[in-house]
């Protein structure tokens, strides 16, 4: 095993450094417990964060849909007044919001996955800690002091690895949630101003051009549909 074992070595080296900082296994044990309680709290906080971010995005979806409805109404009104230019402008704005809406729905799915992951991590950590407590009692009862130290040390290493893993899961969830927040903020501003924010545009000029072409064709389709509706009225 080449690369995989190198990755493991780096991870474990960091873990061992932390374990070596404690002078005896009992100390390691206490340290791990303390960390475990903090971590469980942290997992809960992160879960709450993810849920709050998801709710915020869901609210934005509602607002975007309302705005899209309003713009369509304005386009229709413009057509009735014979102002196709204004109708086109309204439909172009609606397309910008439609693109944001698509992105938002994907983000909500992403947050749902994070929520599930964190819930699983929390359950796993609780079970491991419980296992550790049980093991500790068995070790105390069955082994001499010196042997017990070795056994506790083994269990502490297993638990510490778990704690490190949970820490990483939390860190990644935090990073993702933070990105969502920044994006949600940008969308809030976009909706408030009702204009396209360049920060949300793709950096790839080809992709940006393709989006513009696709949006323009959707605008034409919508315009044709609305014209038919207006003629019927």
């Amino acid at each position: 095993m080449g690369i995989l074992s190198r990755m493991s070595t780096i991870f474990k080296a960091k873990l061992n450094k932390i374990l070596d900082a404690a002078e005896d296994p009992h100390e390691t044990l206490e340290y791990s417990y303390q960390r475990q309680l903090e971590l469980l709290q942290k997992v809960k906080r992160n879960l709450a964060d993810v849920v709050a971010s998801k709710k915020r995005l869901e609210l934005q979806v509602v607002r975007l849909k309302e705005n899209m409805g309003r713009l369509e109404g304005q386009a229709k009104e413009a057509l009735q007044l014979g102002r196709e230019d204004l109708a086109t402008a309204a439909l172009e704005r609606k397309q910008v919001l439609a693109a944001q809406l698509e992105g938002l729905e994907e983000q909500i799915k992403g947050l749902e996955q994070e929520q599930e992951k964190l819930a699983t991590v929390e359950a796993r950590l609780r079970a491991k800690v419980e296992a550790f407590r049980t093991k500790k009692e068995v070790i105390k009862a069955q082994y001499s002091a010196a042997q017990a130290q070795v056994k506790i040390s083994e269990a502490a290493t297993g638990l510490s690895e778990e704690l490190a893993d949970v820490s990483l899961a939390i860190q990644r969830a935090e990073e993702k949630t933070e990105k969502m927040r920044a994006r949600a903020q940008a969308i809030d501003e976009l909706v408030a101003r009702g204009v396209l924010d360049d920060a949300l545009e793709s950096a790839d000029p080809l992709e940006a051009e393709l989006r513009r072409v696709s949006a323009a064709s959707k605008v034409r389709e919508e315009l044709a549909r609305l014209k038919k509706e207006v003629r019927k009225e």
Partner: protein
Amino acid sequence: MIIRILTEGQYRLKNEALSELDKLDDELLEAIANNDEEGFNRRFCEVLTLIRDRGTKVEDTELVESDLVLPAPDTTLEEARELFAAYPRKLGDF
């Protein structure tokens, strides 16, 4: 052999599955060396699938140290390259 997929949990893997993992490991190294993002993503996904499908999940009530610790499933090529410098970047004192 006990393998941990970070953020996911531990699996027990035996004999021929380990040989297959070894082969994928070489290909993964090649993808990282060539800075081949698409190749890295595909190979890493194959590594994880092999472990999940052929391994047995270690019970939540079992406390055991891993022989191998793999990065999280959503690890990017850039992050994988960083692993050689320091891992994890911001784990801090847990």
